């Protein structure tokens, strides 16, 4: 099944997973910068992480024939200290001209704090200054609804923002239409224990405007499944979706959004 994995944290995965992705038909993979499961102690830790995302991971993926792209930022979990966050942000521009960087992400909120919000807005401005797409993380569990509303309010104050170049990720049934109705793209994350199951995601595809929706596994160091997207494609087949419809959601939709970045090129 031809598909794009638009959100995967491969720095946390084994090389075996690249082989599984290749066997499953993964045509491209995108990796947003994120929280590594612990707080890094210095900006130098992020410098090395950005080197890993822009240099090492594309080479590792290429061994399995998978084009690898990335998004850069300091994630909201490590943005609570604004002095530290701004130090890290100061090194990001050096990496933005690398050939596989798509844009700014995954920025957003974690515990919906004023400091997280300030750093989020500074990232949005950086993306605007560089005319780059934006990938946004929405908070977990009980914090998601409030965080999504705060994010949408903050984005609304950027009058020059092209909403078609912004994807708000990890939506669920209570946030998906808030995002789509404002003109943004929305991402659904398929997790075994939280976020969406494949069947809930398909329900949303059936009941919402599916032209601006994508599916991702967001596989990382936690409970997650790197094959979640293609397994959801299989569930779509069981629910009598046509091959064209499955390819539209799993391949054409992410390709259409990601192609807004000049660096996203796949064969």
């Amino acid at each position: 099944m031809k598909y794009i994995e638009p959100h995967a944290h491969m720095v946390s995965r084994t090389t075996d997973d690249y082989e599984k992705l290749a066997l499953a038909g993964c045509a491209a993979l995108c990796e947003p910068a994120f929280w590594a499961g612990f707080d890094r102690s210095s900006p130098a830790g992020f410098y090395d992480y950005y080197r890993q995302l822009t240099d090492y991971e594309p080479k590792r993926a290429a061994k399995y024939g998978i084009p690898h792209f990335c998004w850069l930022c300091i994630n909201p979990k490590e943005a609570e200290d604004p002095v530290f966050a701004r130090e890290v942000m100061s090194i990001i521009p050096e990496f933005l001209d690398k050939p596989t960087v798509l844009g700014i992400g995954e920025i957003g909120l974690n515990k919906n704090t004023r400091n997280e919000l300030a750093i989020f807005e500074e990232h949005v401005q950086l993306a605007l200054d560089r005319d780059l797409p934006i990938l946004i993380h929405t908070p977990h569990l009980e914090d998601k609804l409030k965080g999504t509303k705060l994010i949408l309010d903050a984005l609304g104050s950027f009058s020059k923002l092209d909403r078609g170049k912004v994807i708000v990720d990890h939506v669920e049934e209570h946030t998906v239409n808030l995002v789509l109705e404002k003109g943004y793209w929305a991402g659904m994350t398929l997790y075994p224990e939280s976020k969406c199951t494949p069947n809930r995601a398909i329900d949303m595809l059936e009941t919402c405007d599916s032209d601006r929706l994508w599916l991702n596994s967001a596989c990382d160091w936690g409970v997650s499944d790197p094959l979640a997207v293609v397994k959801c494609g299989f569930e779509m087949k069981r629910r009598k979706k046509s091959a064209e419809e499955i390819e539209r959601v799993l391949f054409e939709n992410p390709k259409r959004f990601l192609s807004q970045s000049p660096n996203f090129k796949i064969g």
Partner: protein
Amino acid sequence: MPSKKDILDLHFMDARYKLIDLAAFLDRVERHPGEADFRLAGFKKALPILLSDQPGRAKAVLEALSDHSTEPAEAATIQFAYGAPQ
């Protein structure tokens, strides 16, 4: 488009399995000593939504388990989330 019967054929056993697991979870919490916290209260508040005749039950359950405050927090005291509002 699949019929209601098609959906039942595909998903009834899975939903049955999850429903029994919910019941067993409530029994398990009740059987063990100590005090429950806000998570169980939030869970029980959401349960009646399952019996509603209105569509949008998943959305309503998620909203019942959400923080409905509107102002940004002054600071983060924890990095994780509990799954139910305190």
